[in-house]
């Protein structure tokens, strides 16, 4: 049904857009090891996106396959959250984003592995280990940079600050989502919001970082109302299929 398709597309878009962002780092990290781990996370996420969007395309005859969904939609049809489309900024900002997102994604996928929809449960179960690693790695960097030098502390604080306003969106629940939760297909993120907040706070504290004040939540990504960043990302990402619509690669 449409709601399930939309939900699966949302999961795929989160992975796709964050994977694309991470792939922008290629060759530009502070050390070969960091380059490796960024490429590795990017690769995991592109793989997950392929699975989720492939499933969405199976549900919806309008789209031939995962590639069609990835490369032939414009901004208003992308359902990813605003956080994943945020610019990389410096390495601290990238890791802040990764930590805030992967922690949420991990808590979600753990629970989604028990979805009543077997296909969803399957992809979630396959992805959850990868994401556990992303979460761990990003958490390490948050602590390391937070409690590193004065400069790295400032940068990590700024990175957290930049992404903080997009946390509430991760826990937004629409009527559509509530319906899916009732049917056992989706997970209500509010179930683990307290856990999430506690874990974030613990990591920030360990990194000697303050928990930022909450501001008015910025929402809209799930309904196609994105920041200005996504359009630029898509212009680059979709250039080849858009320019050569008949080509196979």
């Amino acid at each position, binding site marked *: 049904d449409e709601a399930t398709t939309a939900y699966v597309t949302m999961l795929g878009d989160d992975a796709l857009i964050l994977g694309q962002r991470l792939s922008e780092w290629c060759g530009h990290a502070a050390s070969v090891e960091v380059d490796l781990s960024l490429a*590795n996370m990017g690769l995991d996420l592109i793989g997950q996106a392929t699975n989720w969007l492939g499933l969405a395309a199976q549900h919806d005859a309008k789209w031939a396959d995962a590639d069609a969904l990835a490369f032939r939609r414009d901004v208003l049809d992308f359902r990813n959250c605003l956080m994943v489309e945020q610019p990389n900024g410096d390495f601290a900002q990238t890791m802040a984003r990764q930590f805030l997102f992967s922690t949420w994604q991990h808590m979600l996928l753990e629970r989604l592995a028990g979805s009543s929809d077997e296909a969803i449960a399957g992809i979630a179960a396959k992805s959850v280990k990868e994401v556990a690693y992303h979460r761990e790695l990003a958490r390490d960097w948050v602590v390391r940079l937070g409690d590193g030098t004065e400069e790295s502390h400032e940068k990590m604080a700024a990175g957290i600050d930049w992404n903080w306003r997009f946390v509430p969106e991760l826990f937004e629940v629409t009527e559509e989502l509530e319906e899916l939760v009732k049917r056992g297909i989706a997970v209500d993120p509010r179930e683990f919001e307290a856990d999430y907040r506690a874990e974030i706070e613990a990591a920030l504290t360990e990194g000697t970082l303050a928990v930022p004040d909450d501001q008015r939540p910025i929402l809209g990504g799930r309904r196609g109302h994105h920041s200005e960043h996504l359009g630029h990302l898509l212009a680059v990402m979709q250039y080849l299929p858009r320019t050569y619509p008949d080509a196979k690669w």
Partner: protein
Amino acid sequence: QELIDAFEARVAADEFIEPKDWMPEAYRKTLVRQISQHAHSEIVGMLPEGNWITRAPSLRRKAILLAKVQDEAGHGLYLYCAAETLGTSREEMIEALHSGKAKYSTIFNYPTLTWADIAAIGWLVDGAAIMNQVPLQRTSYGPYARAMVRVCKEESFHQRQGYEAMLALTNGTEEQKRMAQDALNRWWWPSLMMFGPPDDKSPNTERSMRWRIKRETNDELRQKFVDITVPQAEFAGLTVPDPDLAWNEDKNGYDFGEVDWEEFYAVVRGEGPVAKERMKARREAWESQAWVRAAADAHQAKRAAKQVA
């Protein structure tokens, strides 16, 4: 002299030299130069491909390219480690790269202009790299030889993927075919340059051969590459951009035109088309992010101090 004789005898007997073994200073220096140059090439080589990861035309191609670039970072790591066993730190090697003292493969100073260039790099550049590296699996320095075993396995996989990507283009639309041919036109000669100057202009070859750091000459390897690659181009329906290319029955190989060595030496001097871009990217990644490495060290020191306390 006794030490040198013993060393040369071991090498001649195809024994591996290990880090703690005695070795001539020139051997050590040549190896550090060669291995670090190889490591730098892996790292700088991520840039031309990284240029297309964000624009890969399908999720599958994006994943393949990400995996490939990841492999290259991995190769860079093994090689830096192998070089470090010779007593030079990674920081020293990287500083030498950034100051222009150390070199990396000239090929990465050419731009990746279209998607077909990614296919061409896999096919030609990884192909040439393998040709260079396969003999190095039996090179005389143990850690280098062992690193090469892992590297070669992955490179030949990359080469096959690159050729497959090229075939997808030559079997595609007219525009894709044009891209493919244009990429071959631009990458062919630089690929031949990857084997280094002609033997008669390669003064260190003889000694490197004797020490089994090298096991085949530049010209031998170049010939092999041409002989293997030309039929692949033909199979793909592509024209090799060399009017002098002709099968030579007698030598059972191709005759081919003269490489533009002026261009090669200019690129070695750092005058390649995107040399400035490559060095700028590497320097900025390293210098403007020194704070990341400093923070990691500082954090580790703090933790160590806490554990003691």
